[in-house]
């Protein structure tokens, strides 16, 4: 893909993607062919801020995990009272990065 388009994509989406993978994603995008571009614009990234809000308010019910697509862990959190409240608190700190990792995964399935 052209450099300009890649830069544009990165600028719009870098808050949804893990910091450590930004350079890697850029290279993959530059190497990808133009037919992927249409797909790229159809991906809906999950917003880390919303995940954090959900985690703070409803983390006890695992809704943050359901939101980012970790259904199995969401159920685990739901039926154990948020891991007895401990997992809930741990997830307040982990959920933003977990969201970004999930987005990265989703991007990789297209590239």
């Amino acid at each position, binding site marked *: 893909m052209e450099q300009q388009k890649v830069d544009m994509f990165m600028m719009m989406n870098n808050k949804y993607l893990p910091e450590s993978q930004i350079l890697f994603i850029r290279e993959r995008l530059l190497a990808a062919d133009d037919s992927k571009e249409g797909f790229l614009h159809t991906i809906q990234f999950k917003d880390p801020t919303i995940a954090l809000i959900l985690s703070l308010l409803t983390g006890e019910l695992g809704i943050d995990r359901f939101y980012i697509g970790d259904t199995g862990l969401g159920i685990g959190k739901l039926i154990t009272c948020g891991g*007895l*409240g401990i997992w809930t608190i741990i997830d307040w700190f982990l959920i933003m990065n977990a969201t970004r990792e999930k987005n990265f995964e989703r991007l990789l399935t297209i590239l």
Partner: protein
Amino acid sequence: MRLSRGRLYPLLLLLTAGGYLWLFVSNDSSRAFGWSGCLIRYIFHIPCPSCGSTRAVYAAFHGEWLSALYYNPLGLLLAVLMVVIPIWILIDLFLGASSFLQAYRLMEKKLQCWPYALAGIVAILINWIWNFQKYM
């Protein structure tokens, strides 16, 4: 977080170990620390959908299935999972297979389809309402 075998298995083993530890200490912990294991109950003084599951798991392990069902049906599910998951994972680790991971992924995919998701949500809500009647 891509839940690979190397990440999911230790996490689940840790969770089950935590579950057994909780069963072991929970009898006096609520009296000793004032912590019954539930943030919602602690802050808002209302029961959450899984309140009573400690008692339910405890009852299930003592063979009192009906009272487990009364305390919380989710506890029965939890008791089964607490027995099945570690055994399945250990067999997998022993054989070097990943059948549990495949089953987990399949289950996740199924539950993301809306008929299953809707059924799950309705079941949880009904259970929550029942919990309100039992534990308020």
